[in-house]
Structure formats: C-alpha cells, structure tokens
C-alpha cells in the first residue's frame, strides 16, 4: 500500500477523466493525498479504487475493488481469474499419473499437498488406500509438514513485507531456502515436484537425505525463536495486526473459511486430527488455536504450527531411520514400472530398469510401454479426499468413467474459499488494514484461479 505523501498543494499527478460512472482517476502511486482531497471536494463522496491487478502487495495477480470514503473502506470486492490456466480441464486430457504434474502447479506454495490430495482421491477410487506402503505414507507426511513450514514462512514473510517489516521478509525467505534445498534433494525440483504419485511416490529418499533433513530441522528449530523475538511482542507489529481482519466462528462457518482463519476463532478443527489420512493418527502433535479472531491470532497460529510441524518431521525421521521398504503399491498394473533415479542429466527412469526392458525382458518392455502410454484404468465412480493444507481444507473431487483419464477433477482450494472472507474482514475498516487482512488470509492466486 502506497502511503507516501507528496507536497500539499502540488499540482495533482493523477490524470482524471469523466465517465458515465463518475470521475475516474488513474493512480500511479505517490499521490494518494491529492486523490483524497479531490474526492473530498467533489460533490460525489464515493470513490472506487482499484487495487491491482498488479499490486506488489498481492499474493499473485489479485484485484481488489474498494469503495472508500476518506480512509474508510465502505465496500470491498475481489476480482479474480487472472491466473486461471484451466488445469481442471487439462486434467481430463491426460492420464491419471500425469495429473500430478498439473495439480502440483495449482497452489504453487503447497505443491506436495496438492499432489497428495489428488493421489489420495485417485487411490480411493482405485480402492488401494490401504495398500499404499507405510514408508510412502511416512515420507508423504514428512514432505507435507516441511511444505507446511515453507508455506507458513512465505505467509509470514510476505505479510511482514506488506506492512514494512523487510527483516521478517528476509528471515522468512532465508529459512524457506533450507526447505527448498531439501525438496530439491528429494524430488529433484524446488517446486512443481510431481513427487507423490497414485499408489506411492516417484522415488525413495536419495542417500544423505535423512541427514540433510535432520540438519535442516535442527537449523529451523534454532531460528524459530527469531520470529518470536522479532514480531510476537513487537508493539508496531501488534498495532498493525491486533483486531484487524476480524472474523468470528459464525462468519467462518457461513463463508466456509478453514485453516488458521478458523482456528483463530478458537475451534480446533484440523483434518489431520478429525479425519486422519496418511497415518496422521499415529503422530504426536497439537492443534493450535487462538481466540482473537483477528490477523494477529492467525499469525501466532502459523508461527506455532511450524514448531508442531517440526515435531512431526522429527517423528517421521525416527520412523524412516531403518530405511528400506517399497514406496509404491505392489500392484504392477498400477505402480509406475520404474523407480526414478537421479542421473547426470536430471531425474529420469533408472538405468537399471532401461537395461532390463531393452535388453532382457520383452514382457517387461510391453508392460512398461502399455502403462506409460495408456496408463491404468480407474473403475467408474466418484470420490472426495481432503487434506489439511497450510491454508485450510484442500478437497479434491474426482470422477472416473472407467477410463485411463480423469472424467472430472475439481479442487476445492482453501485459498479460493478463504478469499471470500475478504469483504467481511475489510468493510468498515481502514484502507491500510485491507493489506493486513488479505495477508492474514494468505491467499495464493495460483490456487484460487487454478
């Protein structure tokens, strides 16, 4: 939000023109005062301000349409769709396994949640939920929890930057780098992993991964208190966040808000506890709540959830210590024929497998070819799988007509639903608080628009 002041009385820098809707100003920053003064002079008191679609304080390409009276927001609306890429439509033209490479790009800050939710839904349709190897589930949980930390770090970092705390921003992105390095080691990519596949995982953890994760967890643990020191009791920080973006439990329920927004009202609703998946019932962690219903409560929840996620990651590390075990279902009609291996030119089919199908077994070659070009068939029906993403309930509705491609995939992205609460949080408040409220929602437009 630009709040620089230009000299009072200086010639206005905002071009204005008359339209049928009233006088329209094109604001290019730095001339806020003139606009407000001009609007106060005009007999028409209502001014409509377009924030975005390319405002640097937004999480992606979000357009906010604010009707303001002085500094007070009278009405607030969102314009979305700028990042719509038709992923759901595209999925209907790819086979079931290829779907993971698309869904990972939806909410690009929570790729592993998108993949896992999609795969859980496909596995439910296939009826192989219980056949997924335990090791695959543990790695899924570990990767998701690391991803939760990285997503929350971005939420804190960008939220801090938006209210002028660049230190918070730099700390957040610095620590996120630790997690992205782990992702790169394990999946080959920093984002858009396509690591979780229907039936298991693309590959097992590479050598040295456990050590690096252990080191990373230790490093992150030692740095968590910095956020506390920097922000939690910081009077400037609190002055901006406390009581801003208020939304109580009834509002959350009506508007479908989940995740930290819902937990900030005091309701400990977390799908990891209420509807456990991937074996979450066997981990020891707490669901954190606040009772403030405001942006400060959401900030605290994110901060504390990261510590809980570290706890879960440590428990996963303990379980993975033994090593070994498959990470893909045993059913050869579903399991990808080859485990991936990291070669000199990146991640690809393991050379051992290529040697086998090209040189030794004709049947293995046919099988590989059929499964890779055609894919597997999924019995007709529909399923809904939901995971607790860092932003709330990430639900996937999958329909199959018995073919090799999804008939319909719909993502209930928490950002999409949570962003609806923007109007309820912002109307009646100050313009500057809009930024804080939106940062508290933590919408990611890749997920909102899909």
């Amino acid at each position, binding site marked *: 939000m630009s709040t620089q002041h230009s000299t009072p009385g200086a010639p206005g820098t905002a071009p204005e023109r008359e339209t049928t809707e009233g006088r329209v100003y094109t604001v290019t920053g730095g001339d806020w005062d003139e606009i407000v003064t001009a609007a106060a002079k005009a007999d028409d008191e209502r001014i409509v301000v377009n924030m975005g679609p390319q405002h640097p304080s937004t999480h992606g390409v979000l357009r906010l349409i604010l009707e303001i009276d002085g500094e007070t927001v009278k009405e607030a609306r969102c314009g*979305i*769709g700028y990042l*719509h890429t*038709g992923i*759901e*439509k*595209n999925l*209907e*033209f*790819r086979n079931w396994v290829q779907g993971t490479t698309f869904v990972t790009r939806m909410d690009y800050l929570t790729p592993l949640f998108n993949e896992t939710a999609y795969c859980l839904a496909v596995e*439910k*349709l296939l*009826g192989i939920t219980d056949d997924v190897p335990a090791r695959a589930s543990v790695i899924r949980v570990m990767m998701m929890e690391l991803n939760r930390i990285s997503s929350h770090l971005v939420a804190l970092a960008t939220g801090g930057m938006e209210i002028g705390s660049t230190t918070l921003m730099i700390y957040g992105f610095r620590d996120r780098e630790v997690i992205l390095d782990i992702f790169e080691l394990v999946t080959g990519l920093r984002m858009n992993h396509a690591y979780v596949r229907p039936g298991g995982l693309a590959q097992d953890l590479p050598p040295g991964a456990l050590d690096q994760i252990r080191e990373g967890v230790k490093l992150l643990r030692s740095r968590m208190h910095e956020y506390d020191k920097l922000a939690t009791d910081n009077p400037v920080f609190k002055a901006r966040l406390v009581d801003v973006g208020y939304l109580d439990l009834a509002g959350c*329920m*009506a*508007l*479908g*808000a*989940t995740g930290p927004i819902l937990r900030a009202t005091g*309701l400990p*609703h977390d799908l990891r506890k*209420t*509807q456990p998946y991937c074996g979450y019932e066997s981990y020891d962690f707490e669901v954190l709540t606040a009772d403030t219903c405001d942006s400060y409560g959401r900030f605290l929840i994110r901060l504390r959830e990261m510590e809980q996620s570290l706890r879960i990651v440590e428990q996963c590390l303990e379980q993975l210590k033994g090593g070994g075990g498959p990470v893909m279902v045993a059913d050869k009609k579903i399991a990808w024929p080859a485990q991936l291996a990291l070669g000199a030119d990146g991640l690809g089919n393991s050379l051992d497998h290529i040697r086998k199908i090209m040189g030794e077994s004709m049947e293995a070659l046919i099988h590989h070819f059929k499964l890779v*070009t*055609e*894919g597997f068939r999924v019995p*007709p*029906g*529909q*399923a*809904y799988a*939901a995971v607790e993403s860092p932003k709330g*309930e990430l*639900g996937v*509705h999958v*329909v199959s*007509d*018995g*073919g*090799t*491609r999804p*008939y*319909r995939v*719909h993502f*209930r992205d928490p950002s*999409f*639903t949570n*962003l*609806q609460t923007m109007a309820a949080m912002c109307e009646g408040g100050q313009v500057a608080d809009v930024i804080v409220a939106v940062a508290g929602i933590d919408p990611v437009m890749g997920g909102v*628009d*899909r």
Partner: protein
Amino acid sequence: MTEQNAEGAEGTGVPVPREGRTELEVIGVRHGMFGAGNGTNGGSGDTSGYGRLVTPIALPPASSRPYGGAWFDEVADEFEGALEEQGLTPEAAIEKTVVDRDEITFHVHRDHLVQAMRTLRDDPALRFELCTGVSGVHYPGDAGRELHAVYHLRSITHNRLIRIECSAPDDDPHIPSTVAVYPTNDWHERETYDFFGIVFDGHPALTRIMMPDDWLGFPQRKDYPLGGIPVEYKGAQIPAPDQRRSYS
C-alpha cells in the same frame, strides 16, 4: 421432467443396462476393445478385430438399505425423517442414495434442494455446518440429467462428510442457489456457472468469475474443445493434447 428425459434415452443408442440396475446411472458407451482410437480424433488405433465391442459406462448404482458404514443409516434416517416432518415425502426429494467407496451420496431433486440443504444444516442430529463448495460435472450421455452440481457437506459437530448431488438437463440448466443457506457457495456457484453454464436461480450476482466477462461458451462442458496447437519436438509434429491418440 427428469424421468421423461431418461426414458427418451432409449432411442439414442445407449444400451439397455443389465437387469437390476436403473438406467439413470449409465453415462455413456465405449466402443472397441482396447480403447484405442476412441478419442475425439476418431482414428482407429484398434487393430484387434474387436472394434464392434460395445461396453456401457455405468456409475455405481443406487444402494439399498442397510447402507452400512458407521453412520450412513443414521444420517439417512435422520435426513428422511426431518424431510417428512416438513411435509415432504423423502422419495420425492431424494431421487436415490448411493453408497460407494465409503462415501454416501444423496441425489436430491432440484425442486427440493434448498430445503434439503437447510435441513441438513439446521437439524441438530445432522448439523452439516460446513459446505465445501460446488463441483460441476457434465455427463452428456446421462440424458435428461446432463449437468450435475455436487456439494460436499462436512459436519464438524458429528465429524461426518456427505455428498449431495443435484442434476439438471442441458436444455433447462437451472438449479436453485444455495447461497442463502451456505453463503460460502457464492463464489463456488459462480465458478460452476462459469465453467458448466448451470444457472443457479436466486444467486445474488451470478456472473463469470474465472473467465473474462465476455467469454462465450462454458469451457468445462465435455463438448467444449480443449484447444491447443501442434508443437514440434525433435523434428516431429506433436498434435495438440485433445488431438492425440487416446485410450479410453
């Protein structure tokens, strides 16, 4: 309306399903044996000689009592009882109930959708406080019920999840809006309208949400092409995704 159109499906080449199944669940038909060349490209990749094989595509049929699960019968009893208390015959409101893959789906007739949703939300024994939105599905082969709106309702009180499905024919794509009951469906219904052209009657401002305002057509309907252009890769022309050989 729905049943009349369903009867009309007999003349459209959809095979008569096996005995014991209602015909409403058949959503299409598949030709050939290996599914090759059965895509939009119309080519015949199937050289097996079994090209005349016709297989109906059938979704899971309606279930009969008991529904099983830990609480399916309990919810169904409460739901039907609550509707009856309001003077509605459950058979009129609930077209069928499907239990499949540990999930229960109530197919609710669109005339009674809002009342049913309100009951599910308010009845203390049901109490589905949270609606997780609307998902549209287009079944061009499900004559008279082509457009489906699918709602997933979550009860935090009882820790349950159910699915409500409501359908409308292509030539009358109207389903009542549930925004009055679940305000969260505001954007979700706009999205479903945008992509499927389902008109949610009573929605406060049913406009496009993802596509540009002046967009023509409804992109996620099955008859809407994906689009795309062929690309060159290592000297070969790779057709657009919806033109490639597909296996159904």
